[in-house]
């Protein structure tokens, strides 16, 4: 209750955000079409004349199968993160640091250019720059630094080039089909993947977007990653752990999508309608399921591993190794982050993130070897102990005989 009061007081004291937020939303939306009858009475309302939101909706957000349809929910995540990091921002308000309007001006100019060339990605970059510039101009560098995590998360709203999105869908589509066929073969079905078709006992599955963006699982994968990332940032997890859980969540989303394709194919022989329904199952729901399952596994498995049940005994070494990998990744990322910051600044950091998968694999190998080595040590210790005790027993027997 006290926290809510404090938050209310802060929002009231810094009430400039309300006016700013309103006009900022207007810059995103710019609803020209609402005023169309007044601007051009008696003419047909044209399409695509509203602001960046209408361009983004038409190109990406309106299609839930799109790789980046989840971006529409990013502002909610940003708002949650701002609330999470508000105490740091509040503390920074006492010494706001340097204020400059340059970033804001650059953002406005970029937005004007985006209105001339109707490019959604440039408009998004411009609007994020305006938000950063606004904070910098009104509250200064320290507040911006305190809110760096929400703003970094905000960057997920920038649509990637269409070629990148296309490649992801083209790669994931056939992969999903191959995995679906493989999993059906494992349960004794005669399935065959021939992208863009999947065959099962004479039934050919193609309709409903098999092998296309809708069934490739790309949208579920990206949405899962974004959701888990938000969770990790809210919980302030270390970077290594965050990245590892995001990767696992994305893989889980991919597997759930394979399961969806399997179910759709199995249902096809009985009911085409139901099969189509499963295939068109909303990617957001799939992503929600994958993210929830990942986080559940992440938190619950460690509890199981701490227990004494057979499952616990089975999981404990695995999780110990997993946690060790996470710590190792954190340590490497953390230490090299300092080095990168000192040596090459932003570029070094980018390189660090890019090379992270290799570091991750290397860690697994190192930790695996470590675990093996530990196991050998333990075995040797046991053997030593048993030999020593056998020796002691022999000596005792000899002494008893002498007596």
């Amino acid at each position, binding site marked *: 209750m006290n926290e809510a009061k404090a938050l209310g007081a802060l929002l009231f004291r810094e009430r*400039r955000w309300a*006016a*700013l937020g309103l*006009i*900022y939303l*207007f*810059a995103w939306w*710019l609803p*020209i079409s609402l005023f169309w009858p007044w*601007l*051009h009475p008696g003419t047909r309302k*044209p*399409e*695509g*004349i*509203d*602001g960046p939101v209408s361009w983004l909706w*038409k190109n990406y957000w309106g299609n839930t199968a799109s790789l980046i349809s989840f971006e529409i929910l990013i502002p909610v995540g940003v708002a949650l993160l701002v609330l999470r990091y508000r105490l740091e921002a509040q503390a920074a308000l006492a010494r706001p640091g340097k*204020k400059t*309007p340059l970033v*804001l*001006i650059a953002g*406005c100019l970029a*937005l*004007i*250019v985006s*209105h*001339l*060339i*109707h*490019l959604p990605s440039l408009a998004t970059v411009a609007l994020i720059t*305006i938000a950063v510039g*606004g904070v910098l*101009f*009104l509250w200064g560098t320290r507040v911006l630094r305190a809110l760096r995590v929400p703003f970094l998360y905000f960057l997920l709203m920038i649509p990637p*080039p*269409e070629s990148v999105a296309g490649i992801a869908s083209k790669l994931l589509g056939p992969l999903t089909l191959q995995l679906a066929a493989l999993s059906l073969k494992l349960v004794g079905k005669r399935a065959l993947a021939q992208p863009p078709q999947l065959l099962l006992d004479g039934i050919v599955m193609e309709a409903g977007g098999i092998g296309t963006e809708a069934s490739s699982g790309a949208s579920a994968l990206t949405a899962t990653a974004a959701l888990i990332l938000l969770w990790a940032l809210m919980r302030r997890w270390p970077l290594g752990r965050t990245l590892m859980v995001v990767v696992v969540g994305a893989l889980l989303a991919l597997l759930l999508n394979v399961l969806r394709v399997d179910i759709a194919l199995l249902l096809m022989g009985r009911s085409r309608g139901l099969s189509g329904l499963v295939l068109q199952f909303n990617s957001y729901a799939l992503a929600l399921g994958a993210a929830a399952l990942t986080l559940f596994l992440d938190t619950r498995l460690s509890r199981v591993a701490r227990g004494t049940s057979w499952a616990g005994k089975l999981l404990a070494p695995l999780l110990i190794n997993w946690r060790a990998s996470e710590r190792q990744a954190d340590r490497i990322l953390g230490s090299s982050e300092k080095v990168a910051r000192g040596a090459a600044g932003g570029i070094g950091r980018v390189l660090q993130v890019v090379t992270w998968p290799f570091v991750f694999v290397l860690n697994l190998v190192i930790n695996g070897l470590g675990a093996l080595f530990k196991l050998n040590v333990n075995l040797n210790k046991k053997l030593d102990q048993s030999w020593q005790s056998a020796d002691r027993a022999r000596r005792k027997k000899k002494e008893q005989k002498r007596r």
Partner: protein
Amino acid sequence: MKGLGVMMAGLAATAVVGSLASYRFTQAGEWLPRPQTTLGSWEATEESVPPEILGLLGNPQALAFNYGNPLGDMVQVSMVAAGPFENYHDPTVCVGEGAFRLTASRTFPLDGPGSGNVRAMVFKHRANSHYRIVMYYWQQNRDGTTDYEPRMGNYRDMAARFETGWSVVARGRQTVIMRNFMAYTDENDPEGVHAQRCVHEVSREIYRMLKEQKP
């Protein structure tokens, strides 16, 4: 409060420019003159543009004609009023990445030296390599000038897009996007010379007609 005022003024100015840009883009798509149905020996029959094609192009104003001559040659003409950028679909993407493959492209002045440039392209069918189409593509502005560069969302098209955006918003330019083509087989027309002659003839007449429509 001064900072807030400055910031709000900046954002409001951006919004005003954005609104003006949207309004001007819509105005740009309002010019679509109807060509004559008889161009020399060519007689036109008007066709309706399929709704799915119109939907793909963002529902602009559009016209489609089949120009036929007494020899039985048929040149298909499509005219799209260029408003927002989604109306600009380039044939290299829309035709060249579907059933056809782009095999040749050349630009030249359509009506002799000093006239507007157009882009001529030859597409070969992917499944049946004997089947081809020759297409002329250009954007004709109301001031008589022409452009032929693509204006899709690729990063390499940004300069052309900016040029169009600036001309539309600052100067109120209006444009018609032209695509004229004829299908042929290399068995009947090995070099495609006859097909190109037909497309050239019809395109030149339409170019002249649009040029006369100057404001």
